[in-house]
């Protein structure tokens, strides 16, 4: 039996056990299955998967979870410590009402599990789902379409501003046998609406599950969406995610893609800048150690003039970890006066770590401002020495410099909880990084006289 067949059999068994579904959902499932069967799992011969071997997924035997039990105490320890959050929690793909909290939801915003959204609001939700990411996007999107039962639907009415972050939390359990899940995320941001959505992947240390998420976001005119893909998946987990964003006029999309966990991770991030004034900002940080493999593919389509994209990914690879960055920017004919900047810098902390980086620009317009570049380097040993001569131990010095490398990206992160998770993963616990701003402010306020003296003598 082929690898694909074993997944399809699993699908059939699931179908037989499930309550009857509306015809259109069944038809969509079938289309997904057919497309998946035709495409098959990607191999290294596929340009898009050249550096990423998915056999750990294709040769795996993954069941589907049948309950969402998770101890609340343990969940709380894994949950991102935010002052306030609107939270949907999924355990191995299944919705957990117990671990979710929608109390802070303001009027005009809807946050609900997909199953509920489909049963309550068939047409509005079902009609949109899959419009951006169809079964042709990738074999994994097709597989997701065939299996998908649950997920998160976030809808913002025009003008709705949600100040509390919306967290979609995916918990992975250490099951006796590995499971898979195929969640969907749909974000519909109405005109001038504003929200922060955090997809957070985390779980029990010994888990080894396969999670295959397809997310779609539609930003109408003037909508502002900040999206975090915070991946702290257990080190045995296999994680494939995609997010496609459809951007209307003057909309602004900011992505923070932070990969800290997972044995095998593949992320696809796509922005369609469809109308003037649309902006996409992609910030990425991937940190991999041991034998982790992290593959980030991004694509920005400048489909309209006067659109802006800006991308900065930082990779930090230790031990025998392997990273892939493939960032593509396409400027369509007639998309004049666009700006596109892209950069990827990588830090190799070990001789055996590896990065494959490929920034790509395709420009079919003639009046554009574009830049791209990639660099790869190592820690500056002179700087390590300099810090140690000031009394910092070697581990702290290296951690600090590693974190500093990520600074350009992490300085953009306004959620301290995310920054702290990154710091802990990348640098270990550093002394008091988060109380410095206050100190400096105090110094700045009371330092008028020194300022004057300093300015006279800056070039001394």
């Amino acid at each position, binding site marked *: 039996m082929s690898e694909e067949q074993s997944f399809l059999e699993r699908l059939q068994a699931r179908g037989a056990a499930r309550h009857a579904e509306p015809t259109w959902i069944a038809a969509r499932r079938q289309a997904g299955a057919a497309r998946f069967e035709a495409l098959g799992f990607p191999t290294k011969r596929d340009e898009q998967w050249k550096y990423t071997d998915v056999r750990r997924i294709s040769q795996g035997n993954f069941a589907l979870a049948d309950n969402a039990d998770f101890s609340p105490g343990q969940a709380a320890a894994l949950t991102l410590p935010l002052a306030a959050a609107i939270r949907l929690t999924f355990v191995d793909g299944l919705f957990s009402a117990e671990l979710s909290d929608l109390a802070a939801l303001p009027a005009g915003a809807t946050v609900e599990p997909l199953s509920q959204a489909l049963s309550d609001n068939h047409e509005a939700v079902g009609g949109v789902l899959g419009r951006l990411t169809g079964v042709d996007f990738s074999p994994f999107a097709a597989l997701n379409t065939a299996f998908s039962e649950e997920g998160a639907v976030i809808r913002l009415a025009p003008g709705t501003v949600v100040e509390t972050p919306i967290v979609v939390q995916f918990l992975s359990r250490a099951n006796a046998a590995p499971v898979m899940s195929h969640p969907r995320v749909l974000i519909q941001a109405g005109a001038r609406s504003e929200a922060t959505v955090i997809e957070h992947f985390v779980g029990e240390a010994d888990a080894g599950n396969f999670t295959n998420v397809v997310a779609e976001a539609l930003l109408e005119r003037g909508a502002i969406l900040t999206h975090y893909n915070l991946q702290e998946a257990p080190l045995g987990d296999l994680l494939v995610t995609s997010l496609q964003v459809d951007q209307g006029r003057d909309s602004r999309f900011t992505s923070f893609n932070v990969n800290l966990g997972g044995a095998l991770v593949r992320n696809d991030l796509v922005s369609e800048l469809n109308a003037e004034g649309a902006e996409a900002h992609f910030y990425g940080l991937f940190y991999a150690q041991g034998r982790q493999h992290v593959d980030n593919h991004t694509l920005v389509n400048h489909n309209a003039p006067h659109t802006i994209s800006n991308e900065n990914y930082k990779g930090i690879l230790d031990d025998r970890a392997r990273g892939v960055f493939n960032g593509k920017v396409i400027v369509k004919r007639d998309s004049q006066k666009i700006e596109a900047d892209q950069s990827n810098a990588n830090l190799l902390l070990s001789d055996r770590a590896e990065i494959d980086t490929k920034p790509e620009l395709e420009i079919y317009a003639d009046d554009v401002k574009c830049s791209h570049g990639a660099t790869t380097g190592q820690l500056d040993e002179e700087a390590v020495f300099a810090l140690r*001569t*000031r*009394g910092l131990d070697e581990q702290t010095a290296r951690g600090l410099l590693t974190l500093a490398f990520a600074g350009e990206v992490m300085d953009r992160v306004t959620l301290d909880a995310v920054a702290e998770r990154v710091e802990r993963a990348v640098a270990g616990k*550093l002394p008091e990084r988060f109380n*410095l701003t206050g*100190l400096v402010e105090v*110094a700045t306020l009371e330092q008028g006289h*020194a300022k004057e003296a*300093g300015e006279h003598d800056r070039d001394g």
Partner: protein
Amino acid sequence: MLEVKDLHVTVEGKEILKGLSLTIQSGEVHAIMGPNGAGKSTLSAVIAGKDGYEVTAGTITFEGRDVLEMEIEERAQAGLLMGFQYPVEIPGVKNIYLLKAALNAQREARGENEIPAPEFMKLVKEKLAYMKMDSSFLQRAVNEGFSGGEKKRNEILQMLILEPKLAMLDEIDSGLDIDAMKIVADGVNSLRSAERAILMVTHYQRLLDYITPDKVHVLVDGRIVKSGGKELALELESRGYEWVVEESAA
């Protein structure tokens, strides 16, 4: 306080220091002078613990401890602090962070608690003003985009805050105009105390017009060939190094 005995150091197979001996007592300010290539920077690099310097013979002891057995950071924590000729830029690490982390590392090594924030800021503000540095320096990444003079002042600022027992200053005067030189010299002079020693390595006598040494040593070809008081520096200034070289060869 510091005792260097018959120190032999090779760099990439080549012997640079060939039996250097030096004793520094607390309260003293020493200047090591010498022509280029004599091994001046090698001495401070070895004391600080830089990689790539092989000690083939001799000892360095600091307050009775074997310096060569200490980690780089242990040397700093024990009060042996080096001011670099070319301070390294450390992008992404703020000055304020380095100052606080360094001070607390030292306190921790002495078994003391972390410095309370208000006390720390008071200290930093006072020393910044002394070095005529803007408080915006605190927010800037260590030495990044600093002019040569700013980098040197930043080194002295670190000294003023960390209060080493032995401050080693490697060519601290290089690249300074006269105003910056005065500020740096003021900073160094303020470090002078009965409990502290200062070791300056310099090519030029000029610095010694502002920081008067108690002892001057002439380093030639890996050895200290002549030692004397501050008048020796003046003599070197007027007569050059050749006569010392000839005298030592004779």
